[in-house]
Structure formats: structure tokens, C-alpha cells
């Protein structure tokens, strides 16, 4: 499952970033997620170019894998309001299929919608919702330990 889940606002500042609990250097994930914004922007721009105006509403939110790194795979997802979701998956986790990632994004999107629907949530504020947290943490499993690679 995911090692890091990020929600990034329209203006590219982080609304929510959660990493797996045993991650040593959280800041690297921030770097990773931040750098992935480049690719997201590029992809969104190319999507916008390719699709006509009438179909913008129907466009695919899921952007697929953004870029691979040695250790992680990064997937992106952009909502209509240009809120970006980024899921970082360990590269070693080869069982995760594209469809599962999609469904994770969908769940994340629903949870985010719930957060936004909260009348006490100020749009643009950082997400501090317990329910969103629980959804996010359900997608994050403890990183597999290197010493025991056979245990999933």
C-alpha cells in the first residue's frame, strides 16, 4: 500500500501530507511530492490541451504514474478544482495494480469531498479531519521492513 499520501491545494501548497509511521526521513517525501507537482502540472496542461471544452468535465482525474524513482512509485490525481492527490507507493510493492491505485484515489477524493462539505472547514485550510485521517491511514500500511522481505 501507500507510503505517503499528499493532498495539495490549487495553489500548490500542501493541505495534507501523511507518511507511513516508520518512515525515517519525512522530508524526503515532501521533496518527492513537491517535485511530482511538476509532472502533474505538465500532465494537466497536456490534458487541457488535448480535450475540448465540452469534455473537460468528463476528463479523467487519474493521472497515472507520475514518475518512477528507485524506491517509490508516485501516482497522481487531480480534481476539477485543481486539488491534487499524490500517492507514493514503494517500488518494491509490485502487487499493487493500477486499478487499486485508482480506487484508492477515488476513496481519497470522497473523503476530501466530505471534508470540504464540513461547514466548519475553511476552504484552503489544512485538513485536520479525523475521518479523512482514518481514510488516509487505512491506505498507508507500515513499510515493509528490509530485514524480512518475505512478509507482506
Amino acid at each position, binding site marked *: 500500500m501507500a507510503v505517503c499520501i499528499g493532498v495539495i*491545494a*490549487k*495553489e*500548490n*501548497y*500542501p493541505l495534507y501530507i501523511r507518511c507511513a509511521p516508520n518512515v525515517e526521513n*519525512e*522530508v524526503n517525501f*515532501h*521533496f518527492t511530492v*513537491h*517535485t511530482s*507537482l*511538476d*509532472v502533474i*502540472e*505538465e500532465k494537466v496542461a497536456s490534458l487541457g490541451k488535448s480535450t475540448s471544452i465540452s469534455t473537460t468535465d468528463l476528463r479523467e482525474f487519474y493521472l497515472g504514474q507520475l*514518475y*518512477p*524513482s*528507485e*524506491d517509490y512509485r508516485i501516482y497522481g490525481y487531480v480534481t476539477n478544482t485543481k486539488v491534487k492527490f499524490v500517492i507514493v507507493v514503494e*517500488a*518494491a510493492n*509490485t502487487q499493487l495494480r493500477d486499478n487499486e491505485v485508482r480506487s484508492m484515489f477515488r476513496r481519497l477524493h470522497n473523503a476530501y469531498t466530505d471534508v470540504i462539505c464540513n461547514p466548519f472547514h*475553511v*476552504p*484552503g*485550510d*489544512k485538513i485536520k479531519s479525523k475521518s479523512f485521517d482514518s481514510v488516509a491511514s487505512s491506505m498507508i500500511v507500515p513499510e515493509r521492513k*528490509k530485514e524480512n*522481505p*518475505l512478509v507482506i
Partner: protein
Amino acid sequence: MENKATLTYSFSESGDENLFLTLSTRLCDTLSNQTVEWRQTYGRASHQFQLKVKILPLATALLERTDLVTRPYFHIFWTDCNDLDQYRSTIRTEISSWVNTLKNYKDTEWMIVVVAGDILSRLTKAKLPIPRMSIPDKVKSDFCSKNPERLHILHDPTKETTKSTESWTALGLKVANQTVRCMEVVVSKYEERVRAERERRNEKSWDFCSYLILQEELAFMYEMLGMFSPALVQYDELDAMFTQYVLNANAGDIAHWLSRFSEPIKHWHSMLLWKRIDGDARRSILEGQASIIDIRNYLFTRLCHLLFETGKLTEITQRMHIFLHSLSTEIAILEITVPSGAIDCWVFMCCLELVGALCRKSQLQNETDNTATDNPCFDMSNEQLVLENASLWNIARLKLYSLGELCGLMPGIVTTSAHLQIVVDLLAGMGEGEERGDVATSPALVLREALSSKNNFQKQYFELSELAMGTFKHMGHFRAVRCIGNDMAEFYLKLGEPAQAENYLIDTVRMYEADGWPLLLAKANKMLARCYKKMINIRKYLRLCYSLMCDEMISQEERIFYCDEFKSLSTDLGDDTLALNIHPLASVTSIQFIPAETSLRLNSNHHIVVTINSNAPKPMTFQSLQISLDHLGPDDGIEPHNIPDVISLSSFFSRTSEDEADVKSLLSRNFSHNSSAYNSLQPFRRHKRYASTTSSREFMSNQPAEINDEGRIDLIHFQHSKPSKFPASISLHAQRDLQDGALAWAGITCRHANDLLRRQDSSQSQVDKHRSTMSVTMETYECCLTTRQVTLNPGMNRVKLNAKTDLEGYFTLQQLRMSLHKTSFVLPRIYPLVSYQVSYLQPKVFMDHNEDLISGIVQHINIAVNKGDYVNPDQESNSTLSFKTPPSVRLLCVTKCSVATPDEDVSEIEKPSLVTSSDETSINLPSTSLHATVLLKIACLCLTTPYVQKLDVRKRHRRTHSAPPATFSRSPKSAPRHKPIVESPPNPSPPSDGDVTDSIVVHSDVANGSDVTNGGDVAITTSEPTLDVKQSRLSDLKDSIKKSRNNFKNKFSRAKSPKPAKPRFDDWPTVPPNDPDVIITPSLRINGDLIEVTLDDNDVTQPVAPSPSKITETVSMTSYSEMTSSSSDDEDCKPVLIRKHSSTLPRHTPSKSDVGLTIPPVTSATSNSSSQITYDVTITTPWGDASTVTSQITCKRPVEFTHSWSFAGTDVVTRILTVVVENVTSSALTLSEPKLSLSNIKDITSLNGKKFRPLRALGSSTFAWKVSSSPFNSLNTSAQFHADLVSRCDDISDDVTSTVTYQFEVDNLRPIYTIACSVDDDEELRNGVMTSLRVDVTRLRDDPDHETTSNGQQLLMFQVMDTRGRWAVFGKSSGILSMPASRIRESTHDATHVATATVEVMPLVSGSLHMPYVLLHRFMKRRSSEFDEQLSSTQSPVLKPPRLRDFERGEVFYHHVAHQVAVLPPQSDVTHCVTEL
């Protein structure tokens, strides 16, 4: 080298080998132009392709080949034999053996091609050949009997004839089809075999490598046929299979053959994309020597190759990442021992290899675009390709970096032998950098060089980084650029070149700031801080330390570290100072005034408490905390809160009541700018319209904030800069209807309203939150509040400052700064406006009294003394207040003393004593707290002034006829309360005609019912004519007199001049010319009975504004009469201040009405207005400049006086003098010891009883004296009435008395004439019976005013009248009496001075009747100037006839005034009455 399908050829030995080679070559060409279809099994799509073949001579080795690629699929036997015999002898055998050879090998097709040359055809034609005997026939019958297809006749192969071409085409088609069919069969069979082999994969003997080789054959086959997709599938399958095995191994299912891969890897050659097939790798796989790297290398190389062939670059770029990154995972899974760094080397080399390949392909693509050949077209744009290159470079960079770390090549690390050993090992594993034909440097060589030395490493590293950065930058991937830049910076830092790193880091910091990533920003800041520290840029380093020590994203330890750094370095700025925004360090949340008020006194002790929330990681001590102030002095004039340069709309409309005033002021301000059509605005309904809920928050108000109950103002923290689009002002307009003044319209004019009301984004970006606003503008701290040594602990802190109160004015708090050595933390603006006012209160002394004081009795005045903000320079504890009063005001004692503090607490304190010296009274003020008010109540006594009346009775009240008996009342108001107490019986003597009713009226407060006492209190009005003079105060005159009151105050003031003022007319013009008030020239004329005074000034008709403090006394009648009388004497119109409409002075006109009953009071006018005297009291205070205060005490006269002078009885000599004292105050008074003194009459008998006479409020009391005058006395005398006013004061033991004095004149002590009336037959006077009335007029003394006729007679006119219908007068009722004008000698009663007249009268009613009324008139003396203008001429002037005048009161004495005669009813009436009864 390209694979081609293999065909074999054989030929008859007799044939020309060269010819057949030529033919074979031609066949190849023919085939390559043939399109054939590859039909695939299992419903897979068929594939069209051109078969490319190579034709080899048949060899057994070839036939024995079982692989797909190199095995021959088709065999051709060429023969050009024309000769049957030859055929039979040799060729047949040859063919037979050839066929037999082929038959031993399955899956082959063959064909016999008979070349029919020209010769042959010619021969057959010539010889008429027998069809069955031709060679082809023979061959057919011998070998191809079942399958004639296997024979082909090639006609004239060397010639370009139609036949030749046709036969070639047919041959090609045949060969191609048959070959392909054969191939299909073979491949199909091979696939079956592969499948079977795959099914065996779980068997122990199964081995992936051999399987790989097996299946790869298919791929080769397909590749050979140009079917790249199926070929790719083969590799994909292999790749997936291998991956799956690895994954299974991870899951625990380790295939037995995998264990071979677990051996330590010793070689990490790069994949070699420049070769089509890496032979070495394949060989090692075949040999079972391959490591996982070899297998991966090989598979990916092949995949790449195939993908390049198909132009699927996208696929490559996707796969290459998996390829590059999965290896390490797989090695980890398989627990293969790899030297550290080996994988990095491999990845590095692979990356470079890929980059090289991609570049080549890219170049190729460009070339193909140009040449437009049909090479495969790539599915990727150049940009994408470049981007992929960049990411590859980036990966390579990272790997190189880690290699550098591993091998000790990083700057700052000493390379050890261990490092060198590693390098050697790594290089050994990489293999030799093989020579390449087309590529200059192989990746392995690059890596070798990079690892060879530090410099090379750096060079290589920077090269790669720059390449990657440049490309990313070019593609707009700035975040990736910053990532690399970060690493570069770190490298430079390690290299010891911080200046190089700075630019990268600044870019990075900016990027993270702009994107709002706090954690990354913190990291970048830390690096930048390190960089600046190395650069020894203290200023910048301090800034970073500051922002880092407040950064919550970094750990507490680090924050403390930076905090300490800041503290220790803040001294090292040299002469420079550093101003930092206070924002991240602390936030100033509120400002509190203690005590809770913003209007302060000068030098008062006030505090301002600033609440600061510190975010610092540890307590910080600042040298000072200052708040700069904007000082607006009291003389600057502008009320600061009335300059709304920016109007807060939110406060403007949201608050309801408080702002009403502001709105009005604002409105009026704007209206004043507009034309007059814009009337000023009455309160009008304001529309509560908010500009925008979100935007209203942004609006700034210049209104000072209000403090709450605790004196606190919560500050608003501005993170964003002030919105500049807000207009400077909004003007409001309104217009009123001209007719009815109703509001016609009202509106707001605002430019840029669209901007203001524009919808704002509902989600506020929080990017700015992380943007630190470091630079601040410092105010000048010339005027500031300061406190020293402030320690701020993390969390809430309260800092107390002393408010600046040593200056007067309006202070606005502007900026706050905390100084730490050379650095200061500044809150750039305190908002909302916090201001306070310092005012200086002057010492003040007030003196007042509740209402008008009443003279003569002890009353209290109040004095309030407030020291204000005055500070005694020499700290005297007590201070003396001294009063300077006029002598008539005496301060007696202090009755009450209390102190009122500013909090309205009033406490009574001990009474200070009054010290009275010659002209001063002083009080030692008690020492009080600051700003407390001392309230003193002082008993004082204002002495009454003598009450002077000087009335020239002769002039004022002329009466030629003696007044009839009258019952007169004091005033209409009090008349009903009077009732006669004693009624004198009808006085029988002297008998006289007419009915005269005597009445005795007692003037006393009978309404009180208590004061009626014995006869001493009763003033008896006898039947004699009385002269009743009422002290008049011409109130109507007063108003006009008031105006010029100040001008002749000295002349009129009785308080200052003991004698009645007697203004002369030559004094009148002495009105001070500089008097701005009024200049009035009144005129007076006597018009018959009226004295008319005209003020020929227009404003006379207007009421003159009273100036109450200055009007001290009413002009007395005395003064007035003096004036009027004078003016009467002089017929010239002299100015008199009398208002025209109010000065109708009635004179003695008894004949006009029933004078017998009431005579109106002679008072010309009555007034209730009090007469007042104002005294100046000068108070000298011991403080400051304004040491002397002049205040005024206004006193009211307590009593008013009237007197009457009446005859008593029938005696001409004895009279009663009555003085009525009226209390005009609303308090009860007590009078004692009334005394009357007349100037030259000693025979005075007091009729007053008790010593003390109480005088109720608004009541009056009468005092009477019996006066007997002797004939030797003069006619006039001055009288003086004294009485003591007694009042008590609680604090004085004795009664306090003051004397009230009434001075007046009494004249006509003796009458001129006496009238005695008598009726004949007064015994039997009957009703209706005529009788004669005898009137005897006796002159007692000279009358100087009387005109004397030429014959020395004085003429008197008498008139008998009765207006009440009691008497009827027959004949003449009036007549002239003549009397000699000779002097009367006293004591002689000469008959010549008696005149007698008789008038026939008849009583009309019966009973006791008064005599008819007899009025006397005299002729006034004429002056020589009185000429009759009509009668007289210039030669003979004729004097005017003398005028008839009444006598004044007291000049005529009626003997019979109380005398009544009894009138009997007529006789007939008596009988009639009897009968009636």
C-alpha cells in the same frame, strides 16, 4: 547483421555454377518484392511481409540445424539440362539423391527448377518435340508425380522477355508461398514445443536460461520475418516470467534454478544497446553462467532493440525506469551478494547507455524527418525525449553522487586506500570499456574516468547536474530543478564554495516559499543559514536564524540552537542595525490601559500593558521594548479621529448607534464641499449594506479603537499588505426637496466600486502565511514609551510600560519594537489605532450659590477648589485660599467642608477655620489627593443697603380735589384676603351733606390668621384723604434702563452712594463713547394725563436681552421721578429711558370713576422681579499663573417697603404714618425693633407691639406710627424707618442682625384747604326731598402754585358729584369760588379765607348716606412764556388761559369724610310700607 530465412540450392553438377548463383541471386530479389501472408494459428491476425531470404548451397550441416532462424526452409535444385540422355544418366540420379537427402529431414519443402534456355526452346521447336519426352516432363514424372508444383520451368531467365518475367514471377510466388507455409508449420511446431517446455517449468530439470534461449528463437524468427510485435511478445513473456519467478521467490516459492542466481555477482556490465544482440551475454546465458544482471541486460537490450524497430519510444522510456529500478529490488529479493556500489555503477552506465541510444534515435528521427524515408516513426516528441534524457541524467547524477560518497571522492573526504580498493573492485566488475565504432565514449569509460580522481568526479557530477537542470528548466520542471539545485548547493558547500551554493539555495527558498511548503522551506533555510554562516554574512545569517528559531517545522533543539546563534551574533553587527518584523517571533495580541481610560492627566501615573505571545523556543531577554508614539499637541488643532482618510465600511455600517455621530460629521464634511443645493442632512435611514463579507475585513479604519471595560484593545494582525485598491474616500450625498424639505435622494459616490464589490475567492490562499515579511520600515522613536530589560517567555507575556504623560496632547501608538543588541524586532503598525489623550487640568476655583442670595440674612455660598494637575514646585503641603470681598459682604465661617475625589466619592473632612484680617479672609485648604475637589460651604452675610425713596409727591400725584374716602387694596392679588376688622361707626360730626362711607382697612397678613394682634398692628385709614405711595419700581422701564445700566451704574447705585442718586440731565450725555451697547436718545412728552416716553430707536420694540449678572438693582422710583419731574418742568424733550407703551402714568382722576370705592394704587407699575446687587469676590489661589479668580455674588433685597401717610380723624394735625414691609423672598424672616424717625417732628407715637415681628415668605407686615405735626413745622420732612433683620446660623451662637433701612420723604404736612359740607334739615332729611348742600372751603395756608387773578383773587372750581345714584344735584353742580390771594397769617382764622357755595341736592335713597363728593380744582400758575398762539399776535401777546389742576393728596382735608347723614324715607312711603307690611 540481419537474419534472413535460409533457402538452399543445389544444381546439377553438369550445370554452370555461376549461372545458378546468378539465378539464385535473382530469385532473392524476386522474393524480396513478393508480399506474402503469414497466417498465424489460434486466430491471431495474419501478417503481411516481404520475405527476405538468403540462398545457400545445400549442406548437411545446414539441414541438421534445428533452430528456427538458421535452418533452411526451402530447397531448390537447379538444372539446365536439355538433354534427355544426360538427364537420364546423371541428373536423374542427382535429383534422386538430393530428394532422398532432403527426405531425411522433415519439415522441408523443395523444388526443382528447370531452366529452359533459349537453346532448349529452339531445340524443341525445331525438332518437334514429343511432349512426353521433354526434361521437365521427365522430371515431373520421376519426382513430382504427386505434386507437380515442385517443378518449375524457368524460361529464358537471363533475358528480359515477357515469358522470362512471367516465369520468374511464378517462381517467386511459388517459392515464397511454399517457404512461408513451411515456416508456418515449423514455427507452429516450435511454438508447441516452447509451450510444452513452459509447462515443464515446475520440473526440476527445467531451467529458465535454456527456456529463454528456446523461446528467444521464436522471437528471432519473428524478428527475422519483420514481425516485431510477436517478437516483442516473446521477450515480454520471458521478462514477465523472470519477474514472476523473482516475485514468487519473494513469496517463498523459490524455483530451484533461481538458486544459481544467488551467487555473488562479480560482473556488472552495462547493457549494450549499440549491439543488436549481445553475444557475450547470450553466450553466458547459454552456458548458464549468466547473472541476473546479464539476463536483465540481455532482455532489455533485446526489448529495446525491438521497440526501437517499431518506434515505440514511449514504451522504452516506461520500461527503462522499471528496468533501472527493479534490479536492486530483485537483487534484494534474491539476496544476492553484490559489492556496494556495483548496482550504482550499473545503473549509471545503463542510464548513459540509454541516453546515448535515445539521442541516436532522436538524431535518426530528425534525419528521417528530413529524408522522409520509411524508417519507423517514433511515437514521442523531441521534447519528451529530452525530458526523459534529463530524468536519466538525474538518475545518473544521483548514482554518481552515491558512488562518489562510497569511493571517498566527495570534497572534504580524504581518499583512503579502502576507497581506492572499492574503486578498483568496481572498475573490475564493470568490464573493459570495449571499443565502439560509432560512439566515442562508452559509459563504462565515462564512469572509469569519473571514479579515477576527485576532480574528474566533480567535473562529471557538475556536468550531469547542469545537463539535468538545464533540461528540466527548459521543460518548465522547476521543482525538479530546485531539487537538483539543492543537491548542487550541498555539494558546493562541501566543496567549500558557499558563494556558489547561495544562488541555488536562494532559488530553492523562493520556490518553497512561493509554493508554501513549510517543511521544505525549513530545510532549505537551514542550508542557506549554513551557507551564510560559511560566508560570514552575519546580517543574512541573523535573518535566517530568526526565521528558523521561530519555525515550528524544525525540532525544538534546532530552534534553540538558532536562538542561541541569534543571541550570540546579534552583537556582531558592527555599526549596522537590523530591523526584523516581529511577526514570526511574537504576536502582539492586545494593548491594555491601566486604569481603563484613554484620557489621561498630565503627569499622572498610567500604565500600558502589552500582551505579547512569544513563539521563541526559549526565554529571550531584550534590552528594551519601545512603542513609538505619534504626538499631536493640543495646539495642532486637528482632532485626530476626525480625519477619516480611510473609512471603514464595516464599522461604518455594522455598528448602529455609536457611529451616528461619525456619519454625520462625515456627511456634513462632504456636504460642505458641495453646492448649496446639497442641504445638510438630517438623520436619514442608512442602508445596511455590506460591501462584502470577506472584503470588509480588509478595510482599514482610521477610527481610533474603543477600549473595553478592562481598558483593552485587541490588535489585528496584518499579514498581508494593505489592500491598495481601496479608495481614499467615499462621499455621500443627499438632496432635499426644495418645497417640503423631504429627502429627495441620497447616494454614495465611489470610484472603483467594481473593484470593491467584486466577488472574492472564497478560499483564501494560505501561501502567504509562510512568506516572511522581514523588511520593515522603522518609525523614528523620538517620542516613545520605553521599558528596559524585558524577558519574553514562550507563550503569553504581559509587558508593562509607563504611559507618557509629561506632554499634553494626543498620542497614537504607532509601532512597537523590541531591541536585542543591534537587532530589533518591529511590529510595523499597531492596528486598530490605539491612542490616548493627555490633558492638563488647570487649577480651578468655582464659587456659586444655590439661588440668589438674600441680603441681610446668613446664607451659604459654595466654593469648589480643584488643584487640577498643578504640582506645587516647593511641595507645600497646605495652601491658603484668600477672599477679598467688599465690606458689605462678610464671610462668617465655614460650615461644611468635604473632599470629592475624581471617582465621585465625597467624604466630609474637618472644617478649616476662617482667618479674617482687615480686608481679606483666608482659608487654609486641607491637603488632598491629586485631582480631588475640595468643596467648601461658607456662611456669609450680605448687608442690606438702605432703601431710599424720594418721591416728589407734588409733582407725581397732583390732585386738585381731595380724594374721596377710599378702600384701597394693596394689590389686586392680595385684595380678596383683606377684610375689615374694625369698622368705625358713622361719625356724626361734623354734619355734612352727602353720604360718606368711612372704612378702616387693616393691612396685615390676615390670610395667615395669626398676625392679627392688638391695635398697634392695625393701620387705621381714617375718613381723611390718604396719601398712599407705593414704592414703585418701574419694571417696564427696567429693561430699557438695563441697557445703559452700566453706564451710570455709579450714579444710580445705592450700594455705593449712601444718598439717593440724583442724576442730572447734564449727566446724561456722559455715556462713555466706547460703550458698544446701545446709544438711545429717548424723548419724553406729557400728553394730557399721560407721560409718554419715546425711544426713537428701532430696537426698542424688541425686548432687550437681559444680562442678569450685571443687573444689580432696579432704578428706584426716586431716581426716576427725579428725572421725570425735571423733565416735566422743562417742557423741552429730555431723554428719559422709558418705554413708550408701558409708561402710562395714571393721575388723580377720581371723577372718571367711582372714586369713592377704590383708588388704584399709585404705583405706576408693579413688578415681581427682584432687585439684585452683585458683589465681586476676588479669590486668590496659591497655584500657578491664574492665581486670582474673580467671582460674583448676587444678592436680592429681602424686603420691599411701602408707606402711607393718612389723616387721622377730624384733626388736621394728627396723622398716621404706616410702613408696610413686604417680604419678597421665599423664606421667612424676622424683623425686630422697628424704629421711625422724622427729621423735625418729635411727636411720634409707636403703634407697634412686639419686639420681634415674623415675616412669612412673600408675606408682609405693617408698622404704624401716630404723628402729630405742629403748624410751625415745615411742610416737608424726611422719614427713616429702621428695623433689624434677625437670622440665625448654626455655627454662630449669637443671632446675626442686620438693619434694613427705608428712607422716604413725607410732605404736605398741613393741608391747604379744608372742605366742610353740611346739609340743611339734616334732622329731617327725607328721601326725595330737595335740600341744599353747603360747601365751606377754608384756606389754611398759601398755595404758591395757584394762579392769582388780576384783582388778587384766587379762583377755585368746585364740583359736586355723586356717581352712585344716591344724590341728585339740581342746578349747577359746579362753580367757581373766589378767594383773596392775600397771605394768610398763621393762627388767624380770617373769614376772608373762607368761601362758601350752596348746591341743591336731593337724596335718592334713604338711610345713612355719605355726603356727595366735592372735588376742588385750582388754576395753575402760568409762566410768562405760555402764550396762546392762536390769540396772541406779536404786538399783544395773550397768555394761555390757566389750566385747571387737581389737588394732590394731603392738600385738601375733608372734614366730613366719614360723616353720614340720615335720610328718612319719604313719608308716603312709610305708610305705604306699613300697609304693605
